[in-house]
């Protein structure tokens, strides 16, 4: 009878204590919370352009001009149809990024008052707009001219320089 009385009171007491302990533990670990998350990405653009088409005036018959392009017309085809000088235009991808960043112009067997014209198209293959800041003429050792505006005429002294890059 004593054991029965003890057990009758002990069981609820243990259960109560357990609940209280659990409540306290739960209170400690089960604070209310909410988590915010953020994913941020920055992708930078690319400034890139390339030569896509290059052509020249002299595709057969040579052209001539006066010194300093004086007179009208400024240049004319050889009246006898001679084909003495010629050009070789090569598009090159110097940094192997898939874009032709170099136009190599080789003038072969040219002579005083030989005239030709090189035309090329450039294509913006980057992801942002670009503006042409200046045109730089260089030979293999140094800059021979820079132009920021106007039509860039450059007088090239070809003595000893068969290749211009």
């Amino acid at each position, binding site marked *: 009878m004593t054991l029965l009385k003890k057990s009758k009171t002990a069981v609820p007491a243990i259960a109560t204590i357990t609940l209280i302990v659990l409540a306290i533990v739960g209170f400690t670990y089960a604070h209310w919370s909410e*988590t915010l*998350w*953020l994913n*941020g*990405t920055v*992708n*930078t*653009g690319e400034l890139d352009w390339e030569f896509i088409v290059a052509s020249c005036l002299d595709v057969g018959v040579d052209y001539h001009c006066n010194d300093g392009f004086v007179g009208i017309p400024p240049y004319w085809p050889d009246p006898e149809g001679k084909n003495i000088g010629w050009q070789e235009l090569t598009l090159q991808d110097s940094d192997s990024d898939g874009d032709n960043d170099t136009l190599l112009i080789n003038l072969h067997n040219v002579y005083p008052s030989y005239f030709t014209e090189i035309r090329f198209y450039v294509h913006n293959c980057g992801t942002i*707009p670009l503006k042409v800041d200046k045109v730089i003429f260089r030979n293999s050792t140094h800059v021979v001219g820079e132009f920021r505006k106007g039509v860039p005429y450059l007088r090239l002294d070809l003595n000893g320089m068969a290749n211009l890059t």
Partner: protein
Amino acid sequence: METKKLMATFAILMIALGIAGFAYAHWSEYLYLNGTVNTGSVCVEWSFDADLPDSNLKDLDGDGEVDDPVATLNVTFVDDDDDGCAEGLIIELDNVYPCLWVNGTIDVTNCGTIPVGIADYDYNISDPNGVADGIWLYDVNFYLQDPTGGRHDITMPIEQWIAQVNQIDPGWSLVCEFFIHFEEDTPEGATATIEAEIEFWNWNEL
């Protein structure tokens, strides 16, 4: 003798019935108590508002209208638990270029019913090409905004505010106002990412 026995039995029966009657037919009155506990809620959500400058617009499609953005800013809010509040924020800034600036605000609003505070935060940055080196945090300010839109500047460093104050009341927002500029040395064709988490608790347990 039989009569006495019968009367005794009757008397005992009456007493027994009386006792039983007393047990079941006592007078009584009950008191009633109805208790209701409505718990509050911890709820926070992101807000984000930013602009790119007008100089970012160009006529890229050649239609004569200068209305095509070069760099783009895309913001996506994610409501993970469908409670109507955005727990997730995805920000994508694409095609960034030197001298681009971005200004705006990013804020956390307490959309619950009890004050909250920052319990923990963590972030991970992946920036193999050094994009962050080209970002100039020109101006970054933190302030609290009350439900009427009133601004309450936080005059101490945000780390100190978290350590000492760290309370956003219901309806209030913790706002970060920023103005960033991409410098000339921002690398081309690069990607930088940041993943961040901020854990909020009910303020009284912080």
